[in-house]
Protein backbone atom coordinates (compact mmCIF):
# COMPACT_ATOMS: atom_id res chain seq x y z
CA UNK A 1 0.00 0.00 0.00
CA UNK A 2 1.30 3.41 -0.85
CA UNK A 3 2.27 5.71 1.95
CA UNK A 4 -0.23 8.33 0.76
CA UNK A 5 -3.12 5.90 0.55
CA UNK A 6 -2.30 4.75 4.02
CA UNK A 7 -2.19 8.26 5.49
CA UNK A 8 -5.41 9.14 3.71
CA UNK A 9 -7.07 6.09 5.15
CA UNK A 10 -5.98 7.11 8.61
CA UNK A 11 -7.29 10.62 8.01
CA UNK A 12 -10.61 9.27 6.90
CA UNK A 13 -10.82 6.81 9.75
CA UNK A 14 -10.03 9.55 12.20
CA UNK A 15 -12.42 12.02 10.63
CA UNK A 16 -15.44 9.70 11.15
CA UNK A 17 -15.61 10.07 14.97
CA UNK A 18 -14.61 13.72 14.74
CA UNK A 19 -17.38 14.45 12.28
CA UNK A 20 -19.79 12.38 14.36
CA UNK A 21 -18.94 14.27 17.52
CA UNK A 22 -19.15 17.61 15.75
CA UNK A 23 -22.51 16.58 14.33
CA UNK A 24 -23.92 15.53 17.68
CA UNK A 25 -22.70 18.65 19.42
CA UNK A 26 -24.03 20.98 16.78
CA UNK A 27 -27.28 19.02 16.71
CA UNK A 28 -27.82 19.58 20.40
CA UNK A 29 -26.84 23.22 20.23
CA UNK A 30 -29.25 23.87 17.40
CA UNK A 31 -32.00 21.87 19.14
CA UNK A 32 -31.65 23.90 22.30
CA UNK A 33 -31.60 27.15 20.31
CA UNK A 34 -34.72 25.99 18.51
CA UNK A 35 -36.38 25.17 21.81
CA UNK A 36 -35.60 28.62 23.16
CA UNK A 37 -36.90 30.30 20.06
CA UNK A 38 -40.00 28.06 20.06
CA UNK A 39 -40.72 28.96 23.64
CA UNK A 40 -40.25 32.65 22.85
CA UNK A 41 -42.62 32.28 19.93
CA UNK A 42 -45.22 30.63 22.15
CA UNK A 43 -44.70 33.37 24.73
CA UNK A 44 -45.23 36.07 22.10
CA UNK A 45 -48.29 34.32 20.86
CA UNK A 46 -49.62 34.12 24.41
CA UNK A 47 -49.10 37.86 24.78
CA UNK A 48 -50.98 38.37 21.54
CA UNK A 49 -53.84 36.13 22.69
CA UNK A 50 -53.91 37.98 25.96
CA UNK A 51 -54.15 41.26 24.14
CA UNK A 52 -56.99 40.01 21.98
CA UNK A 53 -58.82 38.62 24.97
CA UNK A 54 -58.39 41.82 26.91
CA UNK A 55 -59.68 43.72 23.96
CA UNK A 56 -62.42 41.17 23.62
CA UNK A 57 -61.49 40.76 19.96
CA UNK A 58 -63.28 37.49 19.35
CA UNK A 59 -62.53 37.57 15.60
CA UNK A 60 -58.77 37.46 16.04
CA UNK A 61 -59.07 34.91 18.81
CA UNK A 62 -61.20 32.80 16.51
CA UNK A 63 -58.55 32.90 13.79
CA UNK A 64 -55.88 31.72 16.22
CA UNK A 65 -58.05 28.95 17.58
CA UNK A 66 -58.97 27.88 14.07
CA UNK A 67 -55.34 27.64 13.08
CA UNK A 68 -55.29 24.62 15.38
CA UNK A 69 -52.42 25.95 17.39
CA UNK A 70 -54.36 27.15 20.40
CA UNK A 71 -57.09 26.09 22.72
CA UNK A 72 -58.92 28.64 24.77
CA UNK A 73 -61.44 27.61 27.37
CA UNK A 74 -63.28 29.53 30.00
CA UNK A 75 -62.56 28.46 33.51
CA UNK A 76 -64.29 29.46 36.66
CA UNK A 77 -61.28 29.90 38.83
CA UNK A 78 -57.66 29.24 38.58
CA UNK A 79 -55.24 28.01 41.12
CA UNK A 80 -52.13 29.23 39.51
CA UNK A 81 -51.55 31.91 37.04
CA UNK A 82 -48.07 30.90 36.00
CA UNK A 83 -47.09 29.79 32.48
CA UNK A 84 -46.06 26.13 32.19
CA UNK A 85 -44.14 24.69 29.25
CA UNK A 86 -44.28 21.00 28.52
CA UNK A 87 -43.60 18.45 25.78
CA UNK A 88 -46.45 16.30 24.69
CA UNK A 89 -47.73 14.11 21.96
CA UNK A 90 -50.87 15.17 20.20
CA UNK A 91 -52.93 13.79 17.45
CA UNK A 92 -52.15 15.77 14.36
CA UNK A 93 -55.28 15.93 12.28
CA UNK A 94 -53.38 17.15 9.22
CA UNK A 95 -50.88 14.27 9.24
CA UNK A 96 -53.28 11.73 10.79
CA UNK A 97 -50.79 10.59 13.37
CA UNK A 98 -49.46 11.40 16.77
CA UNK A 99 -46.71 13.94 16.62
CA UNK A 100 -44.55 15.65 19.23
CA UNK A 101 -45.62 19.12 20.28
CA UNK A 102 -44.40 21.88 22.59
CA UNK A 103 -47.17 22.98 24.87
CA UNK A 104 -47.65 26.25 26.79
CA UNK A 105 -50.31 26.21 29.46
CA UNK A 106 -51.32 29.60 30.72
CA UNK A 107 -54.12 31.38 32.49
CA UNK A 108 -55.32 34.70 31.17
CA UNK A 109 -57.42 36.91 33.34
CA UNK A 110 -59.48 39.67 31.89
CA UNK A 111 -61.61 42.00 33.95
CA UNK A 112 -64.50 39.66 33.83
CA UNK A 113 -63.38 36.26 32.84
CA UNK A 114 -60.62 33.77 33.37
CA UNK A 115 -59.38 31.76 30.39
CA UNK A 116 -57.23 28.73 30.28
CA UNK A 117 -55.00 29.09 27.23
CA UNK A 118 -53.12 26.22 25.67
CA UNK A 119 -50.76 27.06 22.92
CA UNK A 120 -48.88 24.35 21.03
CA UNK A 121 -46.38 24.13 18.32
CA UNK A 122 -45.31 21.07 16.39
CA UNK A 123 -41.71 20.00 17.03
CA UNK A 124 -41.69 17.53 14.16
CA UNK A 125 -38.76 19.54 12.61
CA UNK A 126 -36.38 18.26 15.28
CA UNK A 127 -36.48 14.84 13.66
CA UNK A 128 -36.18 16.30 10.20
CA UNK A 129 -33.25 18.24 11.49
CA UNK A 130 -31.68 15.05 12.77
CA UNK A 131 -32.01 13.22 9.45
CA UNK A 132 -30.77 16.34 7.73
CA UNK A 133 -27.73 16.37 9.92
CA UNK A 134 -27.10 12.69 9.36
CA UNK A 135 -27.15 12.97 5.60
CA UNK A 136 -25.17 16.19 5.70
CA UNK A 137 -22.44 14.47 7.64
CA UNK A 138 -22.44 11.52 5.28
CA UNK A 139 -22.06 13.80 2.30
CA UNK A 140 -19.19 15.63 3.97
CA UNK A 141 -17.50 12.32 4.67
CA UNK A 142 -17.88 11.12 1.11
CA UNK A 143 -16.73 14.43 -0.25
CA UNK A 144 -13.61 14.39 1.90
CA UNK A 145 -12.83 10.82 0.83
CA UNK A 146 -13.13 11.90 -2.75
CA UNK A 147 -11.04 14.98 -2.07
CA UNK A 148 -8.36 12.85 -0.44
CA UNK A 149 -8.31 10.62 -3.46
CA UNK A 150 -7.90 13.51 -5.86
CA UNK A 151 -5.28 15.18 -3.69
CA UNK A 152 -3.39 11.93 -3.37
CA UNK A 153 -3.31 11.49 -7.06
CA UNK A 154 -1.83 14.90 -7.70
CA UNK A 155 0.39 14.91 -4.66
CA UNK A 156 1.91 11.57 -5.51
CA UNK A 157 2.42 12.66 -9.05
CA UNK A 158 4.00 15.95 -8.29
CA UNK A 159 5.05 16.28 -4.72
CA UNK A 160 6.61 12.80 -4.55
CA UNK A 161 8.19 13.03 -7.95
CA UNK A 162 11.73 13.70 -6.65
CA UNK A 163 11.43 10.74 -4.33
CA UNK A 164 10.63 8.35 -7.15
CA UNK A 165 13.36 9.87 -9.24
CA UNK A 166 15.84 9.20 -6.45
CA UNK A 167 14.63 5.61 -6.20
CA UNK A 168 15.05 5.23 -9.95
CA UNK A 169 18.61 6.57 -9.86
CA UNK A 170 19.46 4.20 -7.00
CA UNK A 171 18.03 1.25 -8.87
CA UNK A 172 20.24 1.93 -11.83
CA UNK A 173 23.32 2.63 -9.73
CA UNK A 174 26.13 0.08 -9.98
CA UNK A 175 29.37 0.57 -8.17
CA UNK A 176 31.28 -1.23 -10.87
CA UNK A 177 30.18 1.37 -13.43
CA UNK A 178 32.29 3.80 -11.44
CA UNK A 179 30.00 6.60 -12.51
CA UNK A 180 28.75 9.17 -10.05
CA UNK A 181 24.95 9.10 -10.10
CA UNK A 182 23.03 12.39 -10.46
CA UNK A 183 20.23 12.78 -7.98
CA UNK A 184 17.33 15.15 -8.74
CA UNK A 185 17.22 18.56 -7.13
CA UNK A 186 14.14 19.46 -5.16
CA UNK A 187 12.76 22.48 -3.35
CA UNK A 188 11.31 20.20 -0.67
CA UNK A 189 13.84 20.12 2.11
CA UNK A 190 13.25 16.46 3.00
CA UNK A 191 13.95 15.34 -0.55
CA UNK A 192 16.85 17.70 -0.77
CA UNK A 193 18.29 16.08 2.32
CA UNK A 194 17.68 12.64 0.91
CA UNK A 195 19.33 13.57 -2.37
CA UNK A 196 22.31 15.01 -0.61
CA UNK A 197 22.82 12.06 1.69
CA UNK A 198 22.42 9.65 -1.22
CA UNK A 199 24.98 11.62 -3.14
CA UNK A 200 27.53 11.53 -0.36
CA UNK A 201 26.80 7.86 0.29
CA UNK A 202 27.27 6.79 -3.31
CA UNK A 203 30.38 8.89 -3.53
CA UNK A 204 31.77 7.09 -0.51
CA UNK A 205 30.82 3.77 -2.06
CA UNK A 206 32.63 4.68 -5.22
CA UNK A 207 35.81 5.77 -3.47
CA UNK A 208 35.69 2.66 -1.30
CA UNK A 209 35.21 0.53 -4.37
CA UNK A 210 38.12 2.17 -6.12
CA UNK A 211 40.41 1.84 -3.15
CA UNK A 212 39.36 -1.77 -2.62
CA UNK A 213 40.00 -2.52 -6.25
CA UNK A 214 43.31 -0.78 -5.95
CA UNK A 215 44.01 -2.75 -2.82
CA UNK A 216 43.30 -6.11 -4.44
CA UNK A 217 45.53 -5.22 -7.34
CA UNK A 218 48.27 -3.93 -5.11
CA UNK A 219 47.99 -6.94 -2.83
CA UNK A 220 48.27 -9.17 -5.87
CA UNK A 221 51.30 -7.31 -7.09
CA UNK A 222 52.96 -7.36 -3.71
CA UNK A 223 52.33 -11.09 -3.26
CA UNK A 224 53.19 -12.16 -6.79
CA UNK A 225 56.57 -10.50 -6.85
CA UNK A 226 58.07 -12.35 -3.87
CA UNK A 227 56.41 -15.51 -5.17
CA UNK A 228 58.07 -14.92 -8.52
CA UNK A 229 61.40 -14.47 -6.79
CA UNK A 230 60.95 -17.70 -4.85
CA UNK A 231 59.90 -19.56 -7.97
CA UNK A 232 62.88 -18.32 -9.93
CA UNK A 233 65.31 -19.26 -7.17
CA UNK A 234 63.83 -22.74 -7.00
CA UNK A 235 64.15 -23.10 -10.77
CA UNK A 236 67.79 -22.06 -10.52
CA UNK A 237 68.45 -24.44 -7.63
CA UNK A 238 67.10 -27.28 -9.73
CA UNK A 239 69.76 -26.55 -12.32
CA UNK A 240 72.58 -27.10 -9.86
CA UNK A 241 74.37 -30.41 -10.34
CA UNK A 242 75.95 -30.29 -6.93
CA UNK A 243 72.77 -31.18 -5.10
CA UNK A 244 72.16 -34.52 -3.47
CA UNK A 245 68.89 -36.32 -3.89
CA UNK A 246 67.76 -35.44 -0.40
CA UNK A 247 68.29 -31.74 -1.02
CA UNK A 248 66.43 -31.98 -4.28
CA UNK A 249 63.51 -33.50 -2.39
CA UNK A 250 63.44 -30.47 -0.10
CA UNK A 251 63.49 -28.11 -3.04
CA UNK A 252 60.72 -30.13 -4.63
CA UNK A 253 58.50 -29.64 -1.57
CA UNK A 254 59.34 -25.96 -1.61
CA UNK A 255 58.41 -25.83 -5.27
CA UNK A 256 55.06 -27.49 -4.62
CA UNK A 257 54.27 -25.10 -1.79
CA UNK A 258 55.16 -22.04 -3.81
CA UNK A 259 52.96 -23.33 -6.62
CA UNK A 260 50.11 -23.89 -4.25
CA UNK A 261 50.52 -20.51 -2.66
CA UNK A 262 50.53 -18.76 -5.98
CA UNK A 263 47.45 -20.66 -7.14
CA UNK A 264 45.77 -19.76 -3.88
CA UNK A 265 46.65 -16.12 -4.33
CA UNK A 266 45.34 -16.11 -7.87
CA UNK A 267 42.11 -17.84 -6.89
CA UNK A 268 41.43 -15.47 -4.01
CA UNK A 269 42.12 -12.56 -6.27
CA UNK A 270 39.75 -13.94 -8.85
CA UNK A 271 37.08 -14.39 -6.21
CA UNK A 272 37.37 -10.87 -4.92
CA UNK A 273 37.37 -9.54 -8.46
CA UNK A 274 34.17 -11.44 -9.20
CA UNK A 275 32.64 -10.27 -5.96
CA UNK A 276 33.49 -6.69 -6.76
CA UNK A 277 31.81 -7.27 -10.10
CA UNK A 278 34.91 -6.17 -11.88
CA UNK A 279 33.94 -8.45 -14.69
CA UNK A 280 30.88 -7.32 -16.57
CA UNK A 281 28.83 -9.34 -18.99
CA UNK A 282 30.09 -8.29 -22.34
CA UNK A 283 29.32 -10.56 -25.24
CA UNK A 284 27.09 -13.35 -26.40
CA UNK A 285 28.89 -16.56 -25.61
CA UNK A 286 28.14 -19.95 -27.10
CA UNK A 287 27.94 -22.29 -24.16
CA UNK A 288 28.31 -25.28 -26.47
CA UNK A 289 31.66 -23.97 -27.62
CA UNK A 290 32.88 -23.42 -24.09
CA UNK A 291 31.78 -26.89 -23.03
CA UNK A 292 33.61 -28.42 -26.01
CA UNK A 293 36.76 -26.44 -25.21
CA UNK A 294 36.56 -27.68 -21.69
CA UNK A 295 36.34 -31.31 -22.91
CA UNK A 296 39.44 -30.79 -25.01
CA UNK A 297 41.20 -29.23 -22.08
CA UNK A 298 40.48 -32.22 -19.88
CA UNK A 299 40.76 -34.87 -22.60
CA UNK A 300 43.85 -36.35 -20.97
CA UNK A 301 42.13 -36.69 -17.66
CA UNK A 302 39.18 -38.48 -19.19
CA UNK A 303 41.54 -40.89 -20.89
CA UNK A 304 43.68 -41.51 -17.88
CA UNK A 305 40.85 -42.15 -15.48
CA UNK A 306 39.03 -44.12 -18.17
CA UNK A 307 35.91 -42.11 -17.64
CA UNK A 308 33.03 -42.43 -20.06
CA UNK A 309 31.57 -39.17 -21.20
CA UNK A 310 27.90 -39.11 -22.00
CA UNK A 311 26.79 -36.00 -23.85
CA UNK A 312 23.15 -35.03 -24.12
CA UNK A 313 23.49 -31.84 -26.05
CA UNK A 314 20.98 -31.21 -28.77
CA UNK A 315 20.60 -27.46 -28.86
CA UNK A 316 22.72 -24.35 -29.18
CA UNK A 317 22.74 -22.18 -26.10
CA UNK A 318 23.98 -18.61 -26.17
CA UNK A 319 24.51 -16.66 -22.97
CA UNK A 320 25.26 -13.01 -22.44
CA UNK A 321 28.14 -13.32 -20.01
CA UNK A 322 31.81 -12.62 -19.60
CA UNK A 323 33.73 -15.17 -21.65
CA UNK A 324 36.62 -15.67 -19.26
CA UNK A 325 34.35 -16.18 -16.30
CA UNK A 326 32.11 -18.55 -18.21
CA UNK A 327 35.13 -20.64 -19.17
CA UNK A 328 36.32 -20.76 -15.60
CA UNK A 329 32.83 -21.74 -14.45
CA UNK A 330 32.52 -24.65 -16.87
CA UNK A 331 36.11 -25.75 -16.32
CA UNK A 332 35.69 -25.75 -12.57
CA UNK A 333 32.51 -27.80 -12.75
CA UNK A 334 34.02 -30.33 -15.12
CA UNK A 335 37.21 -30.51 -13.12
CA UNK A 336 35.21 -31.08 -9.98
CA UNK A 337 33.30 -33.88 -11.67
CA UNK A 338 36.55 -35.44 -12.87
CA UNK A 339 38.22 -35.18 -9.53
CA UNK A 340 35.41 -36.86 -7.68
CA UNK A 341 34.38 -39.54 -10.09
CA UNK A 342 35.56 -43.10 -9.74
CA UNK A 343 38.03 -44.69 -12.09
CA UNK A 344 36.03 -46.20 -14.96
CA UNK A 345 33.18 -44.00 -13.86
CA UNK A 346 31.06 -41.79 -16.01
CA UNK A 347 30.28 -38.15 -16.45
CA UNK A 348 27.02 -37.01 -17.98
CA UNK A 349 26.63 -33.59 -19.51
CA UNK A 350 23.20 -32.37 -20.39
CA UNK A 351 22.43 -29.05 -22.03
CA UNK A 352 18.90 -27.74 -22.37
CA UNK A 353 17.45 -24.30 -23.00
CA UNK A 354 17.77 -23.21 -19.39
CA UNK A 355 20.08 -25.72 -17.76
CA UNK A 356 23.53 -27.17 -17.90
CA UNK A 357 23.67 -30.36 -15.85
CA UNK A 358 26.98 -32.03 -15.06
CA UNK A 359 26.73 -35.32 -13.17
CA UNK A 360 29.40 -37.77 -12.19
CA UNK A 361 29.35 -41.22 -10.68
CA UNK A 362 29.82 -40.92 -6.97
CA UNK A 363 32.60 -42.39 -4.90
CA UNK A 364 30.91 -41.73 -1.60
CA UNK A 365 27.65 -40.56 -0.21
CA UNK A 366 25.69 -37.41 -0.84
CA UNK A 367 27.54 -34.20 -0.09
CA UNK A 368 26.27 -31.36 2.01
CA UNK A 369 24.67 -29.06 -0.56
CA UNK A 370 25.56 -25.86 1.28
CA UNK A 371 28.95 -26.77 2.69
CA UNK A 372 30.49 -27.73 -0.62
CA UNK A 373 30.13 -24.20 -1.98
CA UNK A 374 31.90 -22.66 0.98
CA UNK A 375 35.42 -21.40 0.59
CA UNK A 376 38.17 -23.78 1.61
CA UNK A 377 35.76 -26.65 2.00
CA UNK A 378 37.73 -29.80 1.25
CA UNK A 379 37.05 -33.46 1.50
CA UNK A 380 39.72 -34.92 3.71
CA UNK A 381 41.42 -37.18 1.19
CA UNK A 382 42.41 -34.61 -1.37
CA UNK A 383 45.40 -32.45 -0.64
CA UNK A 384 45.74 -30.97 -4.12
CA UNK A 385 42.39 -29.25 -4.00
CA UNK A 386 42.35 -25.70 -2.72
CA UNK A 387 38.66 -25.95 -1.91
CA UNK A 388 37.93 -22.84 -3.96
CA UNK A 389 36.79 -24.24 -7.31
CA UNK A 390 33.11 -24.66 -6.50
CA UNK A 391 33.04 -21.49 -4.50
CA UNK A 392 34.38 -19.59 -7.50
CA UNK A 393 31.90 -21.37 -9.78
CA UNK A 394 29.00 -20.36 -7.60
CA UNK A 395 30.21 -16.81 -7.28
CA UNK A 396 30.45 -16.54 -11.07
CA UNK A 397 26.95 -17.99 -11.45
CA UNK A 398 25.60 -15.52 -8.93
CA UNK A 399 27.02 -12.37 -10.45
CA UNK A 400 25.79 -13.46 -13.85
CA UNK A 401 22.25 -14.03 -12.61
CA UNK A 402 22.51 -17.81 -12.81
CA UNK A 403 21.95 -20.41 -10.15
CA UNK A 404 24.20 -23.32 -9.26
CA UNK A 405 22.73 -26.21 -7.29
CA UNK A 406 23.90 -29.58 -6.08
CA UNK A 407 21.87 -32.73 -5.55
CA UNK A 408 22.53 -36.42 -5.13
CA UNK A 409 20.52 -38.69 -7.34
CA UNK A 410 20.84 -42.36 -8.36
CA UNK A 411 24.40 -42.57 -7.07
CA UNK A 412 25.33 -39.48 -9.03
CA UNK A 413 26.58 -36.11 -7.87
CA UNK A 414 24.52 -33.69 -9.92
CA UNK A 415 25.44 -30.05 -10.42
CA UNK A 416 22.79 -27.98 -12.13
CA UNK A 417 23.46 -24.56 -13.56
CA UNK A 418 20.25 -22.69 -14.31
CA UNK A 419 20.35 -19.66 -16.57
Amino acid sequence: MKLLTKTSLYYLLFSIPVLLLAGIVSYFIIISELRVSNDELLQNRLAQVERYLQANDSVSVGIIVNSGEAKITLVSNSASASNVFSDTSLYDTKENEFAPFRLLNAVVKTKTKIYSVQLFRSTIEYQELFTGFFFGLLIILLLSAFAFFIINYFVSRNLWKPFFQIVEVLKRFRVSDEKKPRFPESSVSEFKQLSESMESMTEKLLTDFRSQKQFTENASHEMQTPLAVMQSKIDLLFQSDKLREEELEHIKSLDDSVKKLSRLNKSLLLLSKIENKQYLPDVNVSLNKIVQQSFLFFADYFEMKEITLEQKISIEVTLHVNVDLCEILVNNLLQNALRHSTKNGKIIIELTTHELVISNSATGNALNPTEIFKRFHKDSNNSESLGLGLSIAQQIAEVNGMELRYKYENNLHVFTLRF
Partner: protein
Amino acid sequence: MKLLLIEDELELRKSIRHFLELEGNIVEVAADFAKAEDKTSGYDYDCVLVDITLPGGNGLEIIRQLKANKSRAGIIIISAKNSLDDKVKGLDLGADDYLPKPFHLSELNARIKALMRRNKFAGEKTIVVNEIEIVPDERKVLVNKKEVVLTGKEYDLLLYFISNQNRVLSKSSVAEHLWGDHVDRLDSLDFIYSHIKNLRKKLLEKGCEDYIHTIYGIGYNFKTNT
Protein backbone atom coordinates in the same frame (compact mmCIF):
# COMPACT_ATOMS: atom_id res chain seq x y z
CA MET B 1 70.64 -13.20 -28.67
CA LYS B 2 70.70 -9.82 -27.07
CA LEU B 3 68.01 -9.28 -24.49
CA LEU B 4 66.91 -6.38 -22.35
CA LEU B 5 65.32 -7.17 -19.03
CA ILE B 6 63.32 -4.35 -17.47
CA GLU B 7 62.45 -5.42 -13.94
CA ASP B 8 62.62 -3.53 -10.66
CA GLU B 9 62.87 -6.48 -8.27
CA LEU B 10 66.58 -7.11 -7.78
CA GLU B 11 66.42 -10.82 -6.93
CA LEU B 12 64.12 -11.64 -9.79
CA ARG B 13 66.36 -9.67 -12.11
CA LYS B 14 69.34 -11.68 -10.95
CA SER B 15 67.56 -15.04 -11.42
CA ILE B 16 66.22 -14.27 -14.88
CA ARG B 17 69.54 -12.87 -16.01
CA HIS B 18 71.40 -15.87 -14.69
CA PHE B 19 69.07 -18.38 -16.32
CA LEU B 20 69.03 -16.63 -19.68
CA GLU B 21 72.80 -16.25 -19.67
CA LEU B 22 73.12 -20.00 -19.14
CA GLU B 23 71.34 -20.24 -22.48
CA GLY B 24 74.11 -18.20 -24.04
CA ASN B 25 72.24 -14.92 -24.32
CA ILE B 26 73.59 -11.47 -23.66
CA VAL B 27 71.29 -9.99 -21.06
CA GLU B 28 71.23 -6.30 -20.22
CA VAL B 29 69.12 -5.06 -17.36
CA ALA B 30 67.22 -1.91 -16.40
CA ALA B 31 65.77 -1.44 -12.95
CA ASP B 32 63.64 1.62 -13.51
CA PHE B 33 61.78 3.55 -16.14
CA ALA B 34 64.49 6.10 -16.89
CA LYS B 35 67.16 3.46 -17.31
CA ALA B 36 64.86 1.43 -19.52
CA GLU B 37 64.11 4.45 -21.70
CA ASP B 38 67.83 5.08 -21.96
CA LYS B 39 68.60 1.56 -23.09
CA THR B 40 65.76 1.16 -25.54
CA SER B 41 66.47 4.45 -27.26
CA GLY B 42 70.18 3.81 -27.51
CA TYR B 43 70.51 0.16 -28.43
CA ASP B 44 68.83 -2.56 -30.43
CA TYR B 45 67.68 -5.77 -28.83
CA ASP B 46 66.28 -9.01 -30.14
CA CYS B 47 63.87 -9.20 -27.29
CA VAL B 48 62.71 -6.92 -24.50
CA LEU B 49 61.20 -8.30 -21.30
CA VAL B 50 59.23 -5.57 -19.60
CA ASP B 51 57.52 -5.31 -16.26
CA ILE B 52 54.46 -3.05 -16.19
CA THR B 53 54.88 -1.43 -12.81
CA LEU B 54 58.20 0.31 -12.69
CA PRO B 55 59.62 2.99 -10.45
CA GLY B 56 59.26 6.23 -12.36
CA GLY B 57 56.80 5.12 -14.99
CA ASN B 58 54.68 2.54 -16.68
CA GLY B 59 56.13 -0.32 -18.70
CA LEU B 60 53.37 0.15 -21.26
CA GLU B 61 54.96 3.50 -22.11
CA ILE B 62 58.22 1.70 -23.00
CA ILE B 63 56.29 -0.54 -25.38
CA ARG B 64 54.66 2.50 -26.94
CA GLN B 65 58.06 4.11 -27.50
CA LEU B 66 59.57 0.94 -28.95
CA LYS B 67 56.73 0.65 -31.41
CA ALA B 68 56.90 4.36 -32.26
CA ASN B 69 60.59 3.90 -33.08
CA LYS B 70 59.70 0.97 -35.34
CA SER B 71 61.81 -1.34 -33.21
CA ARG B 72 61.86 -4.92 -34.40
CA ALA B 73 62.51 -6.29 -30.92
CA GLY B 74 60.14 -8.92 -29.65
CA ILE B 75 58.34 -7.73 -26.55
CA ILE B 76 57.21 -9.91 -23.66
CA ILE B 77 55.35 -8.38 -20.74
CA ILE B 78 56.19 -9.95 -17.40
CA SER B 79 53.75 -8.59 -14.91
CA ALA B 80 52.49 -9.27 -11.43
CA LYS B 81 49.48 -7.19 -12.25
CA ASN B 82 47.55 -10.08 -13.66
CA SER B 83 44.78 -7.82 -14.78
CA LEU B 84 43.02 -8.35 -18.04
CA ASP B 85 43.12 -4.64 -18.76
CA ASP B 86 46.90 -4.52 -18.80
CA LYS B 87 47.12 -7.67 -20.86
CA VAL B 88 44.74 -6.35 -23.48
CA LYS B 89 46.36 -2.91 -23.47
CA GLY B 90 49.85 -4.36 -23.72
CA LEU B 91 49.03 -6.68 -26.58
CA ASP B 92 47.14 -3.88 -28.33
CA LEU B 93 50.21 -1.69 -28.11
CA GLY B 94 52.16 -4.37 -29.91
CA ALA B 95 53.61 -6.59 -27.20
CA ASP B 96 54.03 -10.16 -28.44
CA ASP B 97 53.33 -12.08 -25.27
CA TYR B 98 52.17 -11.68 -21.71
CA LEU B 99 53.52 -13.78 -18.88
CA PRO B 100 52.01 -13.26 -15.47
CA LYS B 101 54.19 -13.58 -12.40
CA PRO B 102 55.12 -15.92 -10.87
CA PHE B 103 56.41 -17.97 -13.75
CA HIS B 104 58.98 -20.68 -14.30
CA LEU B 105 62.23 -19.50 -15.81
CA SER B 106 62.02 -22.41 -18.23
CA GLU B 107 58.61 -21.14 -19.33
CA LEU B 108 59.99 -17.66 -19.93
CA ASN B 109 62.86 -19.20 -21.85
CA ALA B 110 60.49 -21.23 -24.00
CA ARG B 111 58.38 -18.17 -24.73
CA ILE B 112 61.41 -16.12 -25.74
CA LYS B 113 62.57 -18.84 -28.10
CA ALA B 114 59.12 -19.27 -29.60
CA LEU B 115 58.91 -15.53 -30.13
CA MET B 116 62.34 -15.41 -31.71
CA ARG B 117 61.36 -18.18 -34.11
CA ARG B 118 58.21 -16.33 -35.11
CA ASN B 119 60.07 -13.06 -35.56
CA LYS B 120 62.77 -14.51 -37.74
CA PHE B 121 61.88 -13.51 -41.24
CA ALA B 122 64.63 -15.26 -43.14
CA GLY B 123 66.77 -18.22 -42.39
CA GLU B 124 66.06 -21.37 -40.50
CA LYS B 125 62.57 -22.64 -40.72
CA THR B 126 63.49 -25.61 -38.63
CA ILE B 127 65.00 -26.40 -35.28
CA VAL B 128 67.68 -29.03 -35.43
CA VAL B 129 68.98 -30.86 -32.40
CA ASN B 130 71.28 -33.68 -33.40
CA GLU B 131 69.05 -36.20 -35.18
CA ILE B 132 65.82 -34.40 -34.29
CA GLU B 133 64.39 -31.82 -36.66
CA ILE B 134 61.31 -29.76 -35.87
CA VAL B 135 59.31 -27.70 -38.35
CA PRO B 136 57.31 -25.37 -36.11
CA ASP B 137 55.19 -23.92 -38.92
CA GLU B 138 53.80 -27.35 -39.65
CA ARG B 139 54.14 -28.76 -36.14
CA LYS B 140 56.12 -31.57 -37.73
CA VAL B 141 58.88 -33.66 -36.14
CA LEU B 142 61.51 -35.67 -38.01
CA VAL B 143 64.00 -38.09 -36.52
CA ASN B 144 66.76 -39.18 -38.85
CA LYS B 145 64.66 -37.60 -41.64
CA LYS B 146 61.76 -39.87 -40.80
CA GLU B 147 58.56 -38.28 -39.59
CA VAL B 148 57.37 -39.01 -36.08
CA VAL B 149 53.64 -38.59 -35.61
CA LEU B 150 53.02 -36.92 -32.28
CA THR B 151 49.88 -35.81 -30.50
CA GLY B 152 49.45 -32.12 -29.75
CA LYS B 153 50.57 -32.48 -26.18
CA GLU B 154 53.56 -34.63 -27.12
CA TYR B 155 54.65 -32.05 -29.66
CA ASP B 156 54.32 -29.23 -27.11
CA LEU B 157 56.27 -31.31 -24.65
CA LEU B 158 59.11 -31.99 -27.07
CA LEU B 159 59.34 -28.34 -28.06
CA TYR B 160 59.42 -27.34 -24.40
CA PHE B 161 62.20 -29.83 -23.72
CA ILE B 162 64.19 -28.66 -26.70
CA SER B 163 63.78 -25.03 -25.70
CA ASN B 164 65.16 -25.97 -22.30
CA GLN B 165 67.81 -28.52 -23.15
CA ASN B 166 70.05 -29.61 -20.32
CA ARG B 167 67.85 -27.92 -17.75
CA VAL B 168 66.07 -29.63 -14.93
CA LEU B 169 62.36 -29.10 -15.47
CA SER B 170 60.13 -29.70 -12.49
CA LYS B 171 56.94 -31.65 -13.09
CA SER B 172 54.90 -28.64 -12.10
CA SER B 173 56.59 -26.44 -14.67
CA VAL B 174 55.92 -29.03 -17.38
CA ALA B 175 52.31 -29.35 -16.28
CA GLU B 176 51.86 -25.61 -16.25
CA HIS B 177 53.32 -25.31 -19.71
CA LEU B 178 50.97 -27.95 -21.11
CA TRP B 179 47.76 -27.06 -19.30
CA GLY B 180 48.14 -23.51 -18.13
CA ASP B 181 47.60 -22.58 -14.53
CA HIS B 182 44.17 -21.04 -14.43
CA VAL B 183 42.56 -24.15 -13.04
CA ASP B 184 43.37 -26.01 -9.88
CA ARG B 185 45.79 -28.74 -10.67
CA LEU B 186 44.09 -32.08 -10.83
CA ASP B 187 45.07 -34.74 -8.35
CA SER B 188 48.08 -36.23 -9.98
CA LEU B 189 50.80 -35.02 -12.20
CA ASP B 190 50.99 -38.56 -13.54
CA PHE B 191 49.47 -37.42 -16.80
CA ILE B 192 52.80 -35.92 -17.65
CA TYR B 193 54.38 -39.26 -17.03
CA SER B 194 52.14 -40.98 -19.54
CA HIS B 195 52.72 -38.28 -22.16
CA ILE B 196 56.45 -38.45 -21.64
CA LYS B 197 56.40 -42.23 -21.79
CA ASN B 198 54.61 -42.10 -25.14
CA LEU B 199 56.86 -39.37 -26.50
CA ARG B 200 59.99 -41.23 -25.51
CA LYS B 201 58.67 -44.46 -27.04
CA LYS B 202 57.86 -42.77 -30.35
CA LEU B 203 61.28 -41.12 -30.52
CA LEU B 204 63.13 -44.31 -29.65
CA GLU B 205 61.19 -46.24 -32.28
CA LYS B 206 62.65 -43.97 -34.97
CA GLY B 207 66.14 -44.58 -33.68
CA CYS B 208 66.45 -41.42 -31.63
CA GLU B 209 68.84 -41.36 -28.74
CA ASP B 210 67.21 -41.40 -25.33
CA TYR B 211 67.59 -37.77 -24.29
CA ILE B 212 64.80 -37.65 -21.72
CA HIS B 213 66.17 -38.30 -18.27
CA THR B 214 63.84 -38.72 -15.38
CA ILE B 215 64.93 -37.23 -12.09
CA TYR B 216 62.96 -39.29 -9.71
CA GLY B 217 60.27 -37.38 -7.86
CA ILE B 218 61.47 -34.06 -9.23
CA GLY B 219 61.06 -33.84 -12.94
CA TYR B 220 62.95 -34.26 -16.19
CA ASN B 221 66.06 -33.26 -18.01
CA PHE B 222 66.41 -33.31 -21.78
CA LYS B 223 70.15 -33.98 -21.96
CA THR B 224 71.84 -33.34 -25.26
CA ASN B 225 75.39 -32.75 -24.04
CA THR B 226 76.74 -35.78 -22.30
